[in-house]
């Protein structure tokens, strides 16, 4: 299947700042891709370039078979900016109806659309009176208008409460099942790993990692931690068996590589008379993320 979004060798500088350097990626229909990276990594810049809001210095970009910002691309792409804003004097209903008319969608569906993002009761209130999360939901509502083939969402869950976040990802699942490609940026690692198919990590304008969490985990080859709770009085004997371990109150902590994990577990189970309990702690998301996202000199 051809990709909905293809970027190759994209470069963008702002004066002396290398916002993006030789970035390539593609997103297929129905795929949910998360874009991660530190503040200033270039996530928002990349999204604005895909939408034709900023011109790249070099690189090829194809969005739904067209160039970014082309009339055809704009018909098929929905965008949620990172600090979405609306005219404070308008009601949610008026604002969303306006966006529906621009997309040639019947505005009579505006109320249903607002209900989908949980704003049914506030639909006729002015956006100026909305809370931050409510404004964010208006932003989400406008991104759902029509049948976008590509959704570009810049920190879509910022300002949303936990329940709304879950609802939001459920909405995304439905859209993806429908064949829409989704690219979203986020700083919330846990929700992103559970609800997307693939992660992209930008660091200092470079694409430093790409793949499913599983792939990134093995690529990072970070050590696994094991925490052994010793039976009463057996801590010293266990320390003898694992001289590299670190002694804690009631047991010991040791680390091993992914490849050694099973062998290490086998050794521990040989000592089961002395072991009260065993915990295996894989490298956390944060560990994997910081492994890739580490900037030069950091």
């Amino acid at each position, binding site marked *: 299947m051809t990709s909905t979004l293809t970027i190759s060798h994209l470069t963008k500088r702002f004066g002396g700042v290398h916002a993006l350097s030789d970035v390539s990626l593609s997103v297929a229909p129905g795929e949910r891709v998360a874009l991660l990276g530190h503040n200033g990594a270039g996530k928002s810049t990349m999204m*604005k370039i895909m*939408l*034709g*809001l*900023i011109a790249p210095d070099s690189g090829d970009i194809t969005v739904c078979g067209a160039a970014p910002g082309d*009339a055809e691309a*704009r*018909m098929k*792409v*929905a*965008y949620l*900016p990172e*600090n*979405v*804003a*609306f*005219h404070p*004097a*308008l009601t949610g209903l*008026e*604002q969303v109806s*306006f*966006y529906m*008319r*621009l*997309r*040639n969608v019947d505005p009579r569906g505006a109320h249903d659309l607002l209900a989908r993002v949980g704003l049914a009761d506030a639909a006729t209130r002015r956006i100026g009176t909305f809370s931050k999360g409510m404004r964010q939901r208006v932003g989400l509502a*406008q991104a759902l208008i029509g049948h976008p083939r590509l959704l570009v969402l810049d920190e879509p869950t910022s300002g949303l409460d936990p329940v709304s976040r879950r609802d939001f990802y459920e909405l995304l699942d439905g859209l993806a099942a429908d064949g829409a490609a989704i690219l979203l940026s986020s700083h919330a690692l846990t929700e992103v790993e559970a609800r997307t198919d693939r992660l992209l990590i930008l660091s200092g304008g470079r694409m430093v990692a790409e793949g499913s969490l599983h792939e990134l985990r093995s690529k990072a080859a970070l050590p696994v931690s094991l925490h052994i709770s010793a039976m009463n009085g057996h801590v010293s004997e266990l320390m003898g068996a694992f001289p590299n371990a670190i002694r804690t109150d009631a047991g010991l902590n040791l680390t091993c590589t992914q490849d050694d994990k099973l062998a290490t577990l086998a050794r521990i189970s040989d000592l089961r008379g002395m072991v009260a309990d065993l915990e295996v702690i894989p490298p956390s998301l944060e560990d994997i993320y910081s492994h890739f996202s580490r900037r030069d000199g950091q």
Partner: protein
Amino acid sequence: MIAGILATARIEANIARRNRWVLIAVLLMVVFSLVLSAAGSAPTGALGADRLSVVVASLTSLSVYLVPLVALLMSFDAIAGEVERGTLPLLLTYPVARWEVLAGKLLAHVLILIVALAAGYGAAALVAILTDPQAMAGLGALWRLTWTSVLLGATFLGIGYAVSALSRRASGAAGLAVGVWLGLVVLYDLGLLAAVVADEGGFFTTQLFPVALLANPADAFRLFNLSAAEAGAAASGVAGAAGMIPQWQSLTSVVVWPIAALILAAQVFRKVDA
């Protein structure tokens, strides 16, 4: 294409209504028109003109100042406001062209202006017709004043959009709009009159002065209405020139200015980064 323009016009009308711009524009026009027609009612018989034609002459002098002011007030925020609020980038990712956005705003603002003009001129005309049975004779002049006022308003809406796109900050745009109004509507005439006085009927007065009048949208508007009516020769100093400039020339200026101003606005808006 039409859908995008109409959708924009609709939302702009909502905003203008909510921000009380409609109310302000209508009140301004009605109050000033009534005050003026009351004040100008005394010398009617002396001029031998019907009451409505006299009122139209006074309204012309009023509109030269008021219509540009109302138009600039409505338009200075149009683009700078979107940039400042941060609503422009999202709008520009929608399948709507920049010129369509501008056309939609123009449509809404022109309609509001028409409502305000109809209310103001209508009120003044009604008073004239009720007090003078001959006043129906001035209806032609009133109609001419109305449509030229709409064109004058469109000109200054276009100038306001250009100013708004240039400054990209609502506060800066407001200042610039006031400057434009002062310059084109007030100071320009004062400068011309001073030059005419100093020139004492020389080359400037005979050659440059008419061109300078035609080049200014507000002066062209006044010239066209006065030369057409002839009734108001005493209404203003500049009006003396109305006799020496052919009417087709002032008409051309009245028609060309709004087109030029709107093209300018579209060009400047195109250069605004999202």
